[in-house]
């Protein structure tokens, strides 16, 4: 037996059995793998994470990686400004972020080769180059599998939804709650499945009472049947969650103090950032937020300075400051990324096209050393200068801050052992 445990493949049926037994999500096989590798770490700083997806691929050259000395064909019209960290400079249209640049780290010269939206997004959302033979789980699925949230709090929330999200081989159980819409300033937010729409708490209680009386066809089985036992477990948890004041309050932005609300503007991205902090505060383990509109093939600068950059500036600065104000920055890792950068060479429509060879990412909180720039792109922003940072490395670092060993293995339903991110290495300057 010892040899089997030590070196051989795990059969699909073994996996299924262990998985089913464990039920709560953390399977015995996972535990063994972790224990074996000595990777059960509890001293990690990050307890929860916020993932900000900049959909469309933001131009690195006009945001966090300006090249004031590049030729006209590349440079772009924005100027650099100083930040509160000496030596760190970025776009003039991010003034609020410039005042809190000490709270986050900028990664430059992050590089890959997938120039299509869907592929790039999957890569950056999983830390794995997409393969046709296997679907990798997104960060949120991995984190909500490995980190337990309080019973009445949704562990993994997507605001408003994440079309590219995939639970991959981890299975449906680790999918996100999709809020379905974006929060509005000083309002209560409706969330499908959680919000009471047209019914009151008394209705919920009355119905639950009814349900319990009618739902007894399989009572004789007790908990011996896994399907029945699983449904009973989820039934109780759903009831707890629907009734939970903590959850309801987290989604109710009117409950936020004026001091905090002031950190944000009224736009939906900003308010989503605010909601994310409230969810983490309540106990959620993973929240994704999106800001789209970065696919600027034409009219790049106009669109960036009038719409995207002000929204990003207000939202992210609000997010970092609020996490700090609430005392959550140390325990919450924030990861901001698009799917790729944009062509350093300006195209004929005053725009920039897809460009995966150089992009930027931001990391903050969860023990990340803020106020620094890691990596560097070359003089024209066309690729990493010398050291190439891959999305896998960023993913490995992100997981590391959360106490998750990125080389930990899961088994796919077909029994194949797969590491969380096989090729990534933790970026040491950051942690």
């Amino acid at each position: 037996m010892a040899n089997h445990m030590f070196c051989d493949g795990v059969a699909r049926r073994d996996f299924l059995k262990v998985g089913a037994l464990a039920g709560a999500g953390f399977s015995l096989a996972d535990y063994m793998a972790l224990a074996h590798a000595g990777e059960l770490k509890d001293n990690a700083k990050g307890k929860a994470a916020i993932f900000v997806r900049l959909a469309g691929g933001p131009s690195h050259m006009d945001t966090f990686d300006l090249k004031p000395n590049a030729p006209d064909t590349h440079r772009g019209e924005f100027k650099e400004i100083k930040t509160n960290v000496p030596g760190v400079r970025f776009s003039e249209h991010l003034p609020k972020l410039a005042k809190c640049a000490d709270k986050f780290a900028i990664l430059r010269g992050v590089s890959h080769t997938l120039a299509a939206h869907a592929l790039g997004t999957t890569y950056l959302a999983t830390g794995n180059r997409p393969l046709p033979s296997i679907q990798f789980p997104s960060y949120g699925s991995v984190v909500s599998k490995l980190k337990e949230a309080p019973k009445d709090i949704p562990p993994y929330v997507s605001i408003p939804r994440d079309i590219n999200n995939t639970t991959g081989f981890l299975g449906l159980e680790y999918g996100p709650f999709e809020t379905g819409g974006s929060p509005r300033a000083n309002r209560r937010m409706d969330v499908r499945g959680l919000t009471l729409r047209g019914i009151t708490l008394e209705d919920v209680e009355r119905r639950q009472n009814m349900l319990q009386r009618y739902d007894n066809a399989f009572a004789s089985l007790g908990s011996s049947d896994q399907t029945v036992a699983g449904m009973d477990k989820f039934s109780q948890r759903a009831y707890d969650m629907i009734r939970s004041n903590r959850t309801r309050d987290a989604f109710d932005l009117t409950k936020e103090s004026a001091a905090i609300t002031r950190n944000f503007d009224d736009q939906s991205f900003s308010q989503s950032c605010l909601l994310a902090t409230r969810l983490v505060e309540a106990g959620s383990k993973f929240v994704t937020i999106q800001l789209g509109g970065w696919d600027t093939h034409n009219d790049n600068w106009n669109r960036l300075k009038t719409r995207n950059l002000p929204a990003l500036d207000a939202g992210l600065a609000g997010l970092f400051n609020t996490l700090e104000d609430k005392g959550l920055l140390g325990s919450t890792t924030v990861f901001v990324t698009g799917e790729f950068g944009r062509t350093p060479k300006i195209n004929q429509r005053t725009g920039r096209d897809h460009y995966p060879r150089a992009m930027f990412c931001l990391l903050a909180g969860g023990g990340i050393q803020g106020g620094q720039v890691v990596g560097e792109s070359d003089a024209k922003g066309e690729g990493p200068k010398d050291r190439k940072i891959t999305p896998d490395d960023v993913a490995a670092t992100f997981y590391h801050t959360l106490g998750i060993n990125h080389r930990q293995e899961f088994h796919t339903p077909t029994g194949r052992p797969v590491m969380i991110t096989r090729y990534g290495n933790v970026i040491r300057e950051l942690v």
Partner: protein
Amino acid sequence: MRTTLCALLVGLLPALAVSPVFAKPVGELKTPSQRYASADTTEEVSFRRHVIPLFSRAGCSGRECHGAFAGQGGFSLSLFGYDFDKDHKEIVADEADGIRVELDSPTDSLILLKPTMQERHKGKERIKLGSWEYNLVLKWIKDGAKIDVKETGAFGRLEILPKEIVFSKANQEVQLKVLCHWEDGTVEDVTQLTRFRTNDESVAEVSDTGVVKSLSGGDTHIVAFYDNGVQPIPVMLPVSEKVGDRFPKITTNTKIDELVVNKLRKVGIIPSELCTDLEFLRRVTLDMTGTLPSPEEVKAFQANPSANKRTAKIEELLERDTYAAWWATKLNDFTGNNAQQIGDRYYRNEQSRQWYDWVRARIAKNEPYDKMVAGIVLATSRQGNQSYLDYARQMSTYYKKSNPRDFSKRETMPHYWSRRNIRKPEEKALSFAHAFLGVQIQCAQCHKHPFDQWTQQDFNQFQAFFTGIQYGNRTDIKEDVNYRTMSAQIEKDIGYDRKKTESRRKLQNEIKKRVSMGRPVPWQELYVRKTAARKPNNRKKKTNTGSSRVLTPKILGGDEVHLTEYPDPRAPLMEWMRSKENPYFARAFVNRVWANYFGRGIVEPADDMNLANPPSNGELLDYLADGFVENGYDMKWLHKTIASSDTYQRSWRPNDTNKLDEKNFSKMKLRRLPAEVVADAINMAVAGEKRVEKFVEDMEERMIGPMLTGGNNGRANYALSLFGKPVRLTNCDCERTSDPTLLQTLYTRNDYDMLGKIDSNSGKSMSWIGELRKQTAPDRKLVSKFASIASLKKRVKQFETRQAGYQRTRDKVKSEQQKKRYGQQVKSMQKQIDRTQKQINDLEKERRAHAEANKLDTDDLIEQTFLRTVSRPPTKNELTMAREDIAGAKTQLDGVRDLLWAMLNTKEFIINH
């Protein structure tokens, strides 16, 4: 102890099959530990037969050790030890990391120093110094560390003794013996070189040395792995006393029942009783047609006195559109119909729909399964000797606006092969093996399959069948009109400029316009590249890693095929699948259909047939597969045979002997409904009367129907993805899942989509509750009449205020005359108040009378609610409870709505039982 027990078992249990070889004195075959007991052994050592299996069993070639892709510590062995040339080279000729054998001084060989920890070894001690294992490797080095001649490697078969183990109590032990029969006639005892595995560690465990120990009641297999042999043997410990003659007499009405009960008799499991008529009706209607029985159907079935009604119902269901719709969806799952992957740029969604319809038409007319599969496997875009132009012309007729040609009438369906995710031959091979053979061969893509006989060579030879199958713009034959000329023409016609986005859109519009008129446009096509073009092209040839070797295609587990005899390389594959001896084709389908009815295959997982994963009841699978073939691949025969058995009609209620049984089909497994079926069942349970009828007729409305993954995002898909509708991207039936999750529960409890459906009161989605509300509401005249109650009440309030005013003035004024005048005013106000109040009272009385007269019969509503959801009338207790619940609600219909909500949220609703 062990030998006596074995003797005991042999003596006591007739079920313990003993092979003739076992009866011979076993002593004549020496074990490796005997053969290599001394360092001076003269026994020959073979690299393949002894050295590699030894390293494999010692764990050296495991995934976390030297079997890892990058090796370990500079030393890399092939995973699961089957690439003998490479491993040999790695040991004797690895120049880079140092040669690991010292022929001049064998004991100083690294390959011996490391595993014995004479030198630092991260993998710890794997071999003891001076042990037989040590001597074996030492002798091999002394003999020159040679690789074998080809003949040595010809593996015959493994023989495990005993062939079956039946334990009588827990904690008994039996030593297994593994004999390898090589093709050259030698037989070796390789027990000590074999790896063992138990398929269920709760029933029995097996030690490294092959000692099987019983743990608790049940049955499983112990699997032995040696060289290319993977051999399971059945192991069981009866769960009760009731085995053999002590087993109660159970009438078996069908062959299925006989074979299932035969197995149960061995394991001492008594099957559950038959289920009730209504349980049967609900179960079979859901399993066979993906649809709830309608309330009327439930009542009719219950009232039907015929003894034969279950069989009659099965036959009736097989004729329904819903049967064809649901099974077309299942077959589309297995074959991977995903619109986004289909090759055509503009007509993906349409083609995905064509794929579905093509399959559905065949299921509806019960075309033989092999014929339908041949229509997919052997498909090409052109039919017969069509020229490109004729083909392009014909294609457009399938899509033209008026009177389009029916695609499902085509003999072949090419979209399976056109998918972008199976462009490469190896991807085609994986998809093919999964879809039609129920086999997972992806492991063998990179290394020897750990649980089956497949080697990388087998995989490469299998994929060679698919190299000539191409989708795109055909260039291997010369035609005056072809894809390129037609494209050039249409581009010229519109002045196309590929650099401009608008121009691209214009081209697309032009193509769509021409197609809608039925005019030919440049369609891409699925074709088999002419053999001539398959000759290696020297000019283009790249020098990559030896994979450009021309491989002779070889059928999985079969013969090599010389393709020159076949214009289409898929033809011999199809021939092979249709041959009687084919071990996969019929079984894969039979097993999947069985899994649909029982929530578990006879081989489980149903799409993972491999040697180490034997069927839980081999005779049963054989019987069904043979019967299926003998009946001309008649799908309806298969469904009917399965559904008519008592085994399918057993209750889910367990008894003491079968409560833990999961694999012997002694009771019905509780299964959550599949995604599409849940979504449909909810829609049907809440639907207005007329829509309920439409549910069995109009497949366009149905999730089990052509609602494909492509094109339709939106609300419906939220539920479908929540409940695990497969995306059809990976080669695994496990994409469809029936696991319950928290989000599913939140959806049925509280999602606005769900709550909205229950109470919808308008248009197409009119709900039953909505209809009832409309029906019981008074007509418009009465509504406005009753609405006046409110204004009358307001008027009373006004009168009262004025009256109070007069009263106050009356109290204030001094003169009697004035007092009198105001007094009269007070009185007259009172009169007005009284008159209005009477009007109000009369109206309210009328309204109550109307409501009473229009009140629906509560008992009837309760019954409807139960029939709609759990397909049975309420019990007495439930009826009493529901009457109270409804009486306590704000209105009758609010009460019914809450009851409906509760019933939709019961496990009884969402579980097929």
